[in-house]
């Protein structure tokens, strides 16, 4: 009999706001967090837009020297984790260190640190290399530092499954709690890759939107006029907990994680196949893990990146799994229309959005949706305006380069 896993804390840092309250309010208002790149000089780049975190003050969470040496992907994770743990009431009732795990994924980790370090070698010489360059570049250092800050000595890990990393962290955390390895896990994703290498590299793949004249309209998942994704950054963290422990300490329970699944496409390094068979299998498996039928799902927070291939094939996959229900009552939206694509952080942030939709009875919109792609014909993408709806079950899907598929299913908590 596997243990039940519930969500008792939420924390986010995103281009829409550096707290859950701010980000959720912006999502409900259909606001865009996309603007012109300021983190580096993008004058010569074909892509000049991104969803950047704004006005983030790390000193609320770390010391001055830590703020100096820790890459932003670590700082965003520390902040979001602190907010999630505070939200979970850990300051009053914290699990024993050996029972508290940390699983925080990131696609690329300390990319800014890597770039600056390399520049230092080329311009100033090896002797000027910081002793913190290596540790603070490692993708798992977000989990490492959060473990120190939150005194977590249980399971610790960092999935690096690209754009599915944050969702995979949640999947792994659920597995640990279900089999009793941990009583609670701080889980999600973090990313701070708005850098010359990442933007230049994605641009070389022609996968980023070049709608530089209208940044806030560039991320347009499922829309016919989409031309690529908008890179962004931030962190999305959940506190996942064994239901029995949550009950014992009288914790607020936001939702239950009733199903998780992971599958591989084994098709191409960066593109899904037509129909996205791997995603179909993954969603079906998540429903089976949750012991529910397709028509029990009220809302899907889609991967919906705003690329030609993902959005067309994801719509096809949803129709395959949900049949007629996909074009009758199912609500689907992509919050990437507002945040941009937070890469490894997106799975964490979008899990938070799915849980919020259950708590608040509001489904965030897919903004910039003027005219849906044919593949999505008949589907309700909650175009442009948030929708009041009773959301009992919400699914969140994340797909990553390397053909990685993740699906998470959340339900309002029933005793």
């Amino acid at each position: 009999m596997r243990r039940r896993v519930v969500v008792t804390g939420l924390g986010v840092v995103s281009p829409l706001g550096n707290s859950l309250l701010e980000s959720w309010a912006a999502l409900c208002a259909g606001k865009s967090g996309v603007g012109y790149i300021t983190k580096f000089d993008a004058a010569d780049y074909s892509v000049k837009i991104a969803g950047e975190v704004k006005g983030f003050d790390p000193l609320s969470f770390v010391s001055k020297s830590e703020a100096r040496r820790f890459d932003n992907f670590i700082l965003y994770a520390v902040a979001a984790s602190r907010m999630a743990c505070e939200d979970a009431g850990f300051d009053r009732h914290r699990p024993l260190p050996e029972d508290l795990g940390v699983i925080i994924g990131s696609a690329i980790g300390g990319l800014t640190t890597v770039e600056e370090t390399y520049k230092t070698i080329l311009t100033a010489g090896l002797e000027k290399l910081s002793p913190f360059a290596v540790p603070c570049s490692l993708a798992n250092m977000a989990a490492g530092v959060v473990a120190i800050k939150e005194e977590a000595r249980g399971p610790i890990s960092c999935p690096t499954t690209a754009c599915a990393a944050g969702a995979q962290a949640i999947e792994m955390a659920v597995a640990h709690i279900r089999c009793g390895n941990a009583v609670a896990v701080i889980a999600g994703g973090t990313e701070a890759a708005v850098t010359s290498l990442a933007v230049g590299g994605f641009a070389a793949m022609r996968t980023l939107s070049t709608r530089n004249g209208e940044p806030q309209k560039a991320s347009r998942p499922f829309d016919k006029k989409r031309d690529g994704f908008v890179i962004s950054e931030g962190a999305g963290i959940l506190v996942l907990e064994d239901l029995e422990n949550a009950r014992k300490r009288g914790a607020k329970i936001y939702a239950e994680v009733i199903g998780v699944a992971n599958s591989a496409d084994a098709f191409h390094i960066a593109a899904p196949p037509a129909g996205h068979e791997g995603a179909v299998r993954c969603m079906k498996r998540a429903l089976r893990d949750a012991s529910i039928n397709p028509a029990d799902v009220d809302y899907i927070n889609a991967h919906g990146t705003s690329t030609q291939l993902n959005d067309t094939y994801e719509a096809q996959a949803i129709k395959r799994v949900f049949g007629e229900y996909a074009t009758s009552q199912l609500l689907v939206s992509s919050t990437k229309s507002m945040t941009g694509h937070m890469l490894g952080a997106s799975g964490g942030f979008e899990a938070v959005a799915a849980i919020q939709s259950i708590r608040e009875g509001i489904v965030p919109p897919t903004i910039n949706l003027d005219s849906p792609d044919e593949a999505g014909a008949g589907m309700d993408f909650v175009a442009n305006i948030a929708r009041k709806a009773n959301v009992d079950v919400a699914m969140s899907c994340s797909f990553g380069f390397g053909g990685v598929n993740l699906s998470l299913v959340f339900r309002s908590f029933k005793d």
Partner: protein
Amino acid sequence: MTLDEKVINIIAEQLGRETAECKPEAAFIEDLGVDSLDLFELVMVMEDKFQVTISDEELKNIRTIQDIINFLKSQGVE
């Protein structure tokens, strides 16, 4: 070596194919099983070897090996 032969040799080398397979009328995606990333990389090699620039707009018109040969000729490459 003619320009046609040079181009075919480069393509064969890049794609790991026999030159005989790389006929001028061969379409990259449909006939040679090339994907978009392979094509972007191939175009960069052409730009490098022949000192030309192929814009994203022009790239949209490149479907076959002959299209590349024609483009190079239009840029005065011999």
